[in-house]
């Protein structure tokens, strides 16, 4: 069932390609605006690159959070998910992973190309991409909790950012920090381990918390 849900969400995303592309183009444009605004000061661009790419990834991933449950909520599919004999946390995990595949993976693939705009050296590009690969699933998983809590609320979009952005801070610090640490010659190992730990913890806790939030929101 877990794979059926992923398959279904990917199929729906394929039929609504505009939604997927909006997120990706948002990411590309935000990252590209900074060099234009700051000017061609190469050293400065290099130092700010990881932070800018990571903040843009946070915002882009948040942009699409509202859609994670709301369309299923509006047409009644979510009720059926809650009444399914299958485990709800597993269904939520499937939806969060589908969200990551649709919004997170394109960002990860795009990041090295955008990093070139900031004249990042090869090794830094590699670390940046790896940190995004570990970090973006965490964003989708934590985001699922926020999306579940704000389901059906008016102005839920703003509320979800207030709820979720503070929780994204550790991911941002260690994700962007990984690139800086490797540039400083300290090695990105420690930061990557922490990102991996965040990923494992959120894989276990987030689906379960989001499932409880969904039950509360649907009462």
């Amino acid at each position, binding site marked *: 069932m877990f794979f059926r849900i992923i398959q*279904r969400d990917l199929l729906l995303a394929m*039929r609504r390609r505009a939604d997927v592309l909006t997120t990706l183009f948002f990411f590309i444009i935000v990252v590209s605006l900074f060099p234009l605004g700051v000017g061609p000061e190469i050293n400065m661009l290099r130092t700010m690159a990881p932070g800018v790419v990571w903040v843009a990834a946070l915002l882009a991933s948040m942009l699409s959070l509202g859609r994670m449950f709301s369309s299923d909520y509006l*047409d*009644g599919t979510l*009720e059926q998910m*809650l*009444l*399914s004999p299958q485990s709800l946390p597993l269904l939520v995990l499937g939806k969060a992973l589908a969200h990551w595949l649709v919004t997170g993976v394109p960002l990860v693939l795009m990041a090295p190309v955008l990093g070139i705009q900031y004249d990042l050296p090869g090794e830094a590009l590699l670390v940046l991409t790896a940190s995004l690969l570990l970090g973006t699933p965490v964003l989708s998983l934590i985001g699922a909790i926020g999306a579940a809590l704000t389901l059906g609320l008016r102005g839920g979009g703003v509320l979800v950012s207030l709820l979720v952005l503070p929780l994204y801070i550790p991911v941002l610090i260690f994700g962007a920090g990984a690139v800086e640490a490797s540039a400083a010659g300290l090695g990105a190992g420690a930061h990557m381990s922490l990102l991996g730990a965040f990923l494992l913890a959120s894989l276990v806790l987030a689906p379960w918390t989001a499932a409880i939030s969904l039950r509360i929101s649907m009462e």
Partner: protein
Amino acid sequence: MPTLQGNNLSCVRGDRRLFRDINFSLDAGGLMQVHGPNGSGKTSLLRMLCGLATPAQGEIRWGGTEIRALGGNYFGTMTYLGHLSAVKDDLTAIENLRISSALAGAEIDERKAHEALQHMGLGGRELLPAKVLSQGQRRRVALARLMVCRTELWILDEPLAALDTHAVKLVQGLMERHLKHGGMVVMTTHQEIEITAAATQRLQLA
């Protein structure tokens, strides 16, 4: 087959009490029609019966055990069809039916889904995305689930809304067959409809 029981159920919405002290007991082959004017709490009662909402007071038992305690085991024996059809606009009728059946724990193959949709009068429209179907046709896609599920208890909220007379007959036939095989149906409807069942009870809400 277990019995569905409601004991002293009451429902509060905001500071308004919709109903109180509702008692009923539904056995195999039994049909319960819930009646009442708009806003009398029919949908709220049905949502309680399927476990989506918690009663303000009282308890609902399935086979003697509280449905909260049964959790997934209860969901596996019950089919709920609400106001919202749970039909996805971007999926075809056949995809919709197969996914909703899988979600309900009873995977079906393409052929079976095809047959069910054909029986519901959607032959030739199985491969159209649901967004081009009419309101009544979408409802038929949702109701096709009743043909392929193997659950004992059906909880149907206004199943006949938006259906034409031919489809009403079809659904009526489905329910009668289900009841004859010992299933149970709890439903609300504003239409006058005669369904033959071993035991029919009416529940009147204020």
